[in-house]
């Protein structure tokens, strides 16, 4: 019993806790992921603002670069080159020997692209750039543009500008100029100054840091990143922050309260279960106690009446009186058994086992015989079953109540018929009398507890009104059927099990 309870308790506690922790973990993980993702998007947006501002600086610089002549500007330009459409170098700030050969090829390619663009009448897919020896340029629809040397982590920028159809200016731009300008950008207002925004080059080296976060010292991981606009796209903007949100308190409280209420519910049901178990136990033990207390004196009455009868066997008058005591004691035990069965009904379970039905039924009939005979009953029996699997106790109680009923309510007919037979593999027990019958309007109610026949019929007949109710209940507990046939010529109860 104790192990059983511990098992239930474990079940009630462990299963919800385990389920809740599982749900909790999954939800928290999911929610954290979602929060991280959403927060990451927010941070990216902030970085985009810097990126946009950088684009502005690039455009400004482009305008400046367009205006540059062969003299150049030392702060902005490493070198300025002029080529004609055949790729012939025309002018430079540097010494002609130092001209890099790829710049000439680049110039040639730009001219070629420009011509192709002009000749193309069809909607061929726009070319996003042309690559020459690792240099990449924007499509040459406009007269100027940026080119970046690919594959190099260092920022290596060229600016090109068609002066006319036969001359192009290619500028080797000083990237420090651009980076300085970008570094001078103020931190957007929505970025917490205690966070850190890092501009890193293609080798992940720190180029500039906005804000108070020291990501290198803290060995922190960036929460968001955005590439710089072309042609600075080898560079990245990173966002570092300590104020990284996790799921909010409301959500935690919600899950915790669900968990708590589940536990409380589990506890409540457990408590209820224990209480009902306790009540059942009390009831059962009460029933057992009462049955013991009632049956001991009854046993003594019956036993000593029997013993007295055998000592007084010659004294007919005394024996007759003793027989009355005996019969009344037997009747009292039957009534007690009915009441006990009724009060212990919830715990009744059929316990079918092979039994000789005919012998069992006849034994019950025998216990009624002395009284039935003294009342002048004619008794007919027809037993045809033999052994059948049935709950013998329940069958006995059914038979006792039906025979007792016939004796009590149909004594005027002076007939009792008992039949047992098998039909459709089922046991049939038929108990019939030739009494006055049961009024039709009563037939429905007669199986309810504490309902007895109408007053006239039951006048002077004792009983608790439980007999037929128990007959029906015990029959149904065994998934059987109870059929009542009654008219003014008599009544037949047929129990099919």
């Amino acid at each position, binding site marked *: 019993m104790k192990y059983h309870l511990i098992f239930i308790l474990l079940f009630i506690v462990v299963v919800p806790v385990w389920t809740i922790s599982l749900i909790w973990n999954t939800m928290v993980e999911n929610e954290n992921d979602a929060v991280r993702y959403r927060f990451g998007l927010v941070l990216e947006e902030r970085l985009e603002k810097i990126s946009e501002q950088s684009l502005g600086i690039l455009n400004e610089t482009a305008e400046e670069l367009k205006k540059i002549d062969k003299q150049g500007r030392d702060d902005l330009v490493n070198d300025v080159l002029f080529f004609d459409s055949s790729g012939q170098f025309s002018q430079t700030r540097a010494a002609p020997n130092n001209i890099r050969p790829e710049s000439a090829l680049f110039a040639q390619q730009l001219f070629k692209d420009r011509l192709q663009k002009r000749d193309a009448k069809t909607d061929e897919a726009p070319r996003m750039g042309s690559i020459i020896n690792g240099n990449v340029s924007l499509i040459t629809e406009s007269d100027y543009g940026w080119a970046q040397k690919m594959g190099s982590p260092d920022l290596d920028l060229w600016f090109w500008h068609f002066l006319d159809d036969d001359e192009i200016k290619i500028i080797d731009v000083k990237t420090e100029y651009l980076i300085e300008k970008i570094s001078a950008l103020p931190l957007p207002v929505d970025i917490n100054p205690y966070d850190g925004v890092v501009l890193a080059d293609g080798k992940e080296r720190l180029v500039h840091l906005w804000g108070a976060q020291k990501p290198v010292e803290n060995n922190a991981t960036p929460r968001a990143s955005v590439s710089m606009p072309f042609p600075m796209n080898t560079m990245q903007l990173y966002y570092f922050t300590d104020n990284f949100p996790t799921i909010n308190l409301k959500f935690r409280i919600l899950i915790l309260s669900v968990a708590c209420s589940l536990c409380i519910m589990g506890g409540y049901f457990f408590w209820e279960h224990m209480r009902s178990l306790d009540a059942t136990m009390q009831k059962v033990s009460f029933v*057992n106690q009462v*049955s*013991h207390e009632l*049956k*001991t004196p*009854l*046993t*003594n*009455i*019956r*036993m*000593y009446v*029997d*013993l007295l009868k*055998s*000592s007084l*066997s010659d004294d007919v008058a005394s024996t007759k009186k003793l027989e009355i005591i*005996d019969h009344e*004691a*037997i009747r009292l*035990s039957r009534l007690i*058994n009915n009441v*006990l069965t009724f009060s*212990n009904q919830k*715990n*009744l*379970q059929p*316990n079918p086992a092979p039994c000789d039905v005919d012998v069992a039924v006849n034994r019950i009939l025998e216990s009624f015989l002395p009284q039935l005979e003294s009342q002048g009953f004619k008794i007919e029996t027809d037993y045809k079953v033999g052994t059948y699997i049935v*709950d013998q*106790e329940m069958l006995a109680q059914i038979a006792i109540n039906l025979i007792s009923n016939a004796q009590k309510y149909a004594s005027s007919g002076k007939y009792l018929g008992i039949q047992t037979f098998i039909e459709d593999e089922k046991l049939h027990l038929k108990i019939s009398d030739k009494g006055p019958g049961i009024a039709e309007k009563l037939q429905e109610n007669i199986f309810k507890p504490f309902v007895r026949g109408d007053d006239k019929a039951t006048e002077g007949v004792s009983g608790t009104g439980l007999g037929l109710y128990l007959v029906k209940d015990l029959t149904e507990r065994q998934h059987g059927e109870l059929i009542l046939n009654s008219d003014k010529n008599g009544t037949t109860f047929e129990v099919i099990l």
Partner: protein
Amino acid sequence: MKILVAEDDENIRNGLYEIFDNEGYDVVTAINGAEALKQYKAEKPDMLCLDVMMPEASGFDVCREIRKSDANIPIIFLTAKGQEIDKVMGLEIGADDYIVKPFGVHEVIARVRAITRRALQNKSVPASSDESFIVEKLEIDPSELKARRDGQEIDLSLREVKILKLFHDYKGKVVDRDTLLDHCWGEHVMPESRTVDQHIAALRKKIEADPKNPEIIKTVHNAGYRYE
């Protein structure tokens, strides 16, 4: 044959004593489970009749304890509970039968005789004599506790078998009351003088065609009885 009756209610215990004694058993009684175990060891009964609800140790406890050392001794439970589960439990822990309170004398006698018959046939209990014998038209089978006449069976108690056996062995001789008491009740028992007569009267009712004019056991005035 010795039977141990354990029952805490004094009246039931005394009643059962009288019933079993009348039947011809040597009866030993115990007022609770603990005493029942003590008596079991001291008296070595051939059969037990145990109340289920007893102080000290329940009938089930006693049964379990005894079954550890003896798997065959017949055990009958007296139970007031009457609930199916109790009966099943009683049989499962090794009881041979159960009697539900409130019981009548006839039920107790019928059950005990059935168990005795089984025990006699299994030879788990030594019988005084196994061989059947014939008294007038009666064929008496001691191990069946039955007599047959013209195909009709008559139930007998242990004592009735002993009485008939005595008349059979003393055929033609007068058997006085003391001899009957010595042989059929045992020397240590001092029953009332009427006891023998009552038993003979009851036996005549069973076996005589006309009990008022007995043919088998005849009364010898002022001496005793005689079977001729």
